[in-house]
């Protein structure tokens, strides 16, 4: 059995003449928090969608918990969950109704007990009876997290988990994810272009550019490799295809 939770091997995705992802390979270690990092159009969401089985790759293979996602994803889906600000929950249903429906879909055994635990953990008890569409962005984020935690997943996938959130709510989400991983040992894979998020949460970073993996390492390794003080500078270097040697050369020219 594979020791990786996720194993992506030579995966490509083409939409007619457009290449979204090209020959991408990586694996995700158990209990790690791994970031897929890259700018707009780098292929993060496409890669995540293929991992979830929402999108079929043009070529390559993907396995999760050792199961081939292209052939047998229904064996694995109960063990993972997903959250994205770009996918909504039904707006006219109350929070409790939404969570009840998803709890049933995931086969949660004690639904009232699970909802009670999550409402306490995520402090959503005060708006459980309100329609989801009437909540603020911060409240919706908490509900989306509750939905993502319903089945106590062993693998959680997030697409830009703090996009369009105010700093306070974004900090809450990061703290929540950090604490949850420490407590349960779940594996987290997130797509992001938020550097502070990546530095705080992730112990492994996969850098994507134009649909390809261009670098990989821990945040500390990447900072050393690019001679930078923070991940934002590393990100810009990679996005602009600047390597350390090239930058050192530029600096020497300036000194002269």
């Amino acid at each position, binding site marked *: 059995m594979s020791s990786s939770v996720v194993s992506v091997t030579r995966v490509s995705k083409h*939409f007619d003449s457009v290449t979204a992802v090209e020959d991408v390979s990586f694996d995700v270690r158990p209990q790690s928090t791994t970031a897929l990092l890259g700018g707009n159009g780098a292929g993060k*969401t*496409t890669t995540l*969608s293929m991992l*979830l*089985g*929402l*999108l*079929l790759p043009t070529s390559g293979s993907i396995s999760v918990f050792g199961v081939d996602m292209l052939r047998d994803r*229904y*064996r694995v*889906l*109960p063990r*993972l*969950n*997903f959250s*994205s600000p*770009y*996918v*909504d*929950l*039904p*707006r*006219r*249903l*109350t929070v409790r*109704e939404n969570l*009840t*429906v*998803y709890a*049933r*879909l*995931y*086969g*949660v*055994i*004690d639904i009232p007990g*699970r909802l009670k635990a999550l409402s306490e953990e995520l402090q959503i008890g005060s708006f459980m009876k309100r*329609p989801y569409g009437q909540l603020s962005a911060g409240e919706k984020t908490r509900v989306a997290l509750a*939905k993502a935690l319903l*089945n*106590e997943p062993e693998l959680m*996938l997030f697409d830009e988990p703090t996009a369009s959130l105010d700093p306070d709510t974004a900090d809450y989400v990061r703290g929540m994810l950090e604490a949850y991983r420490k407590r349960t040992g779940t594996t987290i894979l997130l797509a992001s272009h938020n550097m502070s998020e990546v530095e705080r949460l992730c112990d492994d970073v996969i850098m994507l550019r134009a649909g390809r993996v261009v670098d990989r390492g821990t945040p500390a390794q990447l900072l050393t490799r690019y001679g930078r003080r923070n991940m934002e500078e590393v990100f810009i270097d990679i996005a602009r295809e600047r390597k350390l040697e090239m930058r050192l050369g530029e600096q020497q020219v300036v000194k002269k």
Partner: protein
Amino acid sequence: MSLIRRDHTGFFPSLRRIYALVLRHTYLLRSSGPRILELMYWPTVQMILWGFITLFLINHSSWIAQASGVLLSAVLLWDVLFRGQLGVSLVFMEEMWSRNLGHLFVSPLRPSELGCALLTMSLIRTLIGVGGAALIAIPLFHFSIFDLGLPLLAFFVNLLAMGWSIGLLVSGVVLRYGLGAESLAWIAIFAVQPISGVYYPIATLPEWLQYVAAILPSSHVFEGMRAVLFDHVFRLDLLLHAVLLNVVYLSAGFFMFLAFFKGARVRGQLLHVGE
């Protein structure tokens, strides 16, 4: 102890997950009185209109005079077909409007289970809509479609099944071409109305069109309805034709829906649909 059931159902759909989706749409219906009234509105308006036309024609048409309930039966049964199709398409589009497909399909829900939930919701919506209109017709026009007896059940099931086939096909097309194609949900069914012989015998159609009518389950149902009302006989041959055609159409509807779903996974449409 595990928090969730690990009931891998293999090839077979899970009743639990089908029920979860039915529950989702029942919550939606339950939360809105106007939605329930809307379900009954058009069937009732149609029934009242054709009720008055019947009252007028009964003294001016010997054909209507022989079986005064023929037009009211036709309009209510036509609405079974229309509401059956609309029920499937609208419930599916509700998931697209609410941008919920992405969440649904990373859960263990299978497309076939979504399909079964759509059919169940369509049945519930049709029973509310057409059932309401049928009950109102009793005091208003002293007409009860339930007097058709057991044949009514056969007609209902066959028209509903045909509506489901078209509804599944329309849902697939909307998934493929986006919400720009949603008007299909309202108009697609009317293409078969003139050839179904809803209000007149199939023999009225030109001969070549009668061959087209012969491949529609609805034309056999409406011919069967007139046989019961005018001749007081239940035509088993017509029923068998309708059932056989429905088996083919419903299988094709499911197959097309699943094919469009697979196409959506190739094109990445499950994450990017919505208002």
